[in-house]
């Protein structure tokens, strides 16, 4: 084995881990500020200029808090469950190309940890395996709210997974490859070649499924405060609780990358804007969309969510595949 590749992969992994974890922490501050301004509030203001150091204060608080394990919880599972969330979220990023290729000191760097030929399936599969975190956390807590949250995790997984998979099938039929780099290169010809124009229905369905996958507001039923206190995280405190949220925000970033690469031209340069800036703009827009929707929309009941996914979105996805197939033939 060539050691240069090993070292390069380790360096890339460390950079992705640290940068995405930092982005996830920063996203909590952005979320609080954006939600505050949309709701005519100020948000955090006192720690640092406009509260920007609030995330440092929150981090210190989370790391130094007492680690409480409930007496009757199934302790090994209770302790391991929060680790699953960020591990799956970060593992999913292994197959995501973040930026276009660039050259450092004459060495060409491909900013993807591993270009596997089933990239999109790997990302979707590992991100969905992250749902084991709320499921195991809720079931090991021996707490009725947590148990309800775990049950809702399962119905959420069963609902959105079929929609996101079927929604992605139609664009994949057009591209003919599962590698995210191939998908990105398919849309190299400017805005007109973006898949969102030829597959608007798949785009819409995948975004809706992405909201469900990251437990964001219209589908935040596994941790909805008004109904089940804090859902699966009711018994968690300190950094174990924080790990769930690192995982959630990392998942948001992954879903944003997926949508941008699949439907919005990915990291292809546009006019004079370089590709790296383009994808950062798209990611930021999607993170903002997540927050915007959270400020504006109410959430749905579990039965409404299943109704929506199975009775509306899945038939639409199937119809989309059918029409795409007819057009392709």
């Amino acid at each position, binding site marked *: 084995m060539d050691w240069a590749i090993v070292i390069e992969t380790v360096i890339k992994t460390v950079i992705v881990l640290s940068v995405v974890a930092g982005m996830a922490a920063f996203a909590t501050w952005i979320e609080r500020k954006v939600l505050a301004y949309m*709701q005519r509030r100020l948000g955090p203001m006192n720690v640092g200029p406009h509260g920007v150091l609030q995330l440092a204060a929150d981090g210190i608080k989370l790391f130094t808090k007492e680690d409480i394990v409930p007496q009757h919880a199934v302790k090994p599972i209770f302790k391991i469950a929060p680790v699953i969330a960020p591990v799956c979220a970060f593992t999913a990023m292994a197959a995501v190309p973040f930026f276009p290729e660039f050259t450092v000191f004459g060495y060409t760097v491909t900013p993807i940890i591993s270009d596997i030929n089933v990239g999109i399936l790997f990302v979707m599969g590992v991100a969905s395996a992250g749902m084991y975190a709320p499921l195991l956390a809720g079931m090991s807590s021996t707490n009725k709210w947590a148990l309800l949250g775990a049950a809702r995790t399962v119905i959420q997984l069963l609902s959105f997974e079929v929609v996101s998979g079927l929604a992605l099938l139609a664009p994949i039929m057009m591209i003919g490859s599962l590698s995210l780099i191939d998908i990105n290169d398919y849309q190299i010809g400017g805005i007109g070649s973006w898949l969102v124009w030829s597959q608007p229905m798949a785009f819409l369905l995948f975004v809706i499924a992405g909201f469900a996958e990251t437990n964001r507001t219209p589908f935040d039923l596994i941790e909805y405060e008004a109904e089940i206190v804090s859902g699966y995280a009711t018994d968690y405190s300190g950094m174990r609780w924080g790990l769930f949220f690192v995982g959630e925000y990392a998942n948001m970033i992954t879903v944003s990358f997926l949508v941008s690469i699949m439907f919005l031209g990915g990291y292809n340069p546009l006019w004079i804007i370089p590709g790296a800036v383009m994808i950062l703009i798209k990611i930021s827009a999607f993170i903002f969309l997540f927050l915007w929707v959270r400020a504006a929309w109410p959430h749905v009941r579990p039965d409404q969510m299943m109704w929506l996914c199975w009775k509306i979105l899945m038939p639409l996805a199937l119809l989309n595949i059918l029409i795409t197939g007819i057009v392709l033939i």
Partner: protein
Amino acid sequence: MSLEQFSKRDVAPGYIFYNAEERPQSGWEFFKRGFSRAIKGELLVGLKIVLVEMFKRGNTHTVSYPQEKLAIGPRYRAIHKLLRLQESGSDRCIGCGLCEKICISNCIRIETKLDKNSRKEVSQYTINFGRCIFCGYCAEVCPELAIVHSSDYENASEQRAHYGLREDMLTPLDEFKANKQQEFPGFGALSDDADSFVKKTPLAY
């Protein structure tokens, strides 16, 4: 009198019914309702409203509390104040004891004696703020307007002993420290061994 008047007791005369949308009966009507709701774009209206609010400047409703404070009504009933006579600067209180009598939570204690001119003099006046419910009866009954409510509502403290009295308006702090405070026994009052539970803080001692 018919039975109907008894069976519809939840509807008072003059009750206005809200004419809600009729529930669709057939599957086709359900579909039509769902379709019209889907194309109405109500969700997009919600998105637009919050976005407009986000970019409006200066419409925040937050009061950044320690720096800004809301104006309080002049009749707000917060911590009591004992007033002095404008002319002489001596205490307005004549020691009639009406506030002690009317206090429904039994938290005012007033001690009087005769001074050398045989006039009544207030020697001790304490309010147990841990027990006071701020009903305002004392200020209402006072014939001399000696005891009033101020608007000083920031009376959080680290120790319950601080609620024994408000030294800057009622009893001097040195007297309090000498354990000369007189209290009625009962719920909320300081116990005899309260001093042994007081922990020292650099601010207060």
